[in-house]
């Protein structure tokens, strides 16, 4: 019975070593060697604790968190692009050709943004978002001066404000998450 539990404990520690990020490999080896000193029934709880610690280390490495933010942004951008295509389709059915074309263009631009964020990372998301935020802010503020009074002016303003809010949130995530992780690592012991 005890040897069975010991085998499970050793297997758990092998998994812990395999899971450990490169910078924690020495620590997982330390856990593995320390298991030889855990007596009897304490070996399994010790090993499971080590496994948990290494799984957490793997999940909370800066790289893992940055990648999670990156892929969250990519998925959200893809969903946003699909919503634009749906909106464009609806607009075209009511004969709003210009807004429909604009929505298709925006869907394509957002998809390109998602692609570059996936390939190049969060920096690409920030670099692509900044000009769109600036442009959208100008549109939201100056739409009345740019277009003659018409029903779609309010629609364009609403869309521009939506862009500013969504892209600013995306930028906050792209800049804030890695900075927060770095700060947490420095300030918590």
């Amino acid at each position, binding site marked *: 019975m005890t040897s069975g539990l010991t085998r499970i404990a050793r297997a758990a520690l092998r998994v812990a070593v395999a899971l450990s990020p490169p910078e924690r490999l020495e620590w997982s080896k*330390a856990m593995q060697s320390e298991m030889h000193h855990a007596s009897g029934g304490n070996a399994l709880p010790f090993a499971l604790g080590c496994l948990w*610690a290494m799984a957490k280390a793997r999940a909370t490495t800066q790289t893992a968190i940055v990648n999670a933010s990156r892929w969250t942004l990519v998925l959200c951008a893809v969903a946003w692009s699909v919503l634009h295509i749906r909106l464009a389709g609806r607009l075209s059915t009511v004969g709003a050709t210009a807004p429909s074309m604009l929505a298709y263009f925006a869907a394509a631009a957002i998809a390109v943004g998602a692609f570059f964020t996936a390939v190049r990372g969060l920096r690409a998301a920030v670099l692509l978002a900044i000009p769109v935020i600036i442009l959208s802010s100008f549109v939201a503020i100056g739409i009345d001066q740019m277009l003659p009074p018409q029903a779609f002016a309010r629609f364009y303003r609403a869309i521009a404000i939506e862009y500013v809010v969504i892209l600013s949130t995306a930028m906050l995530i792209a800049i804030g998450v890695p900075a927060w992780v770095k700060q947490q690592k420095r300030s918590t012991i």
Partner: protein
Amino acid sequence: MARRINISRQTLTVLSAFLETPQGWRYGYDLIKETGLKSGTLYPLLMRLHDQGLLDSEWHPSPQQGRPARHAYRLSHAGIALAKQARSSETPPLQSAVEAFA
């Protein structure tokens, strides 16, 4: 700008354990037995202390034949200063000690 150091109750427990013999090397499993912490709590804590230069570590050959070398730990000078301040005040943040020795 001065940065704030958050110090947990578990960290205080471990620092106190190290302070019992500040110059002595300690092993993970012995610390678990002494502090009552789980391995899933102790090791991440040791890793963070080590990352911040508060803990030294090295491999010691096991005195028992056939057993692998053990990873041993002891507080660095900065760690000892932090632990002493933590024990005397137990009031985070323990900013000055870290800055003085980091």
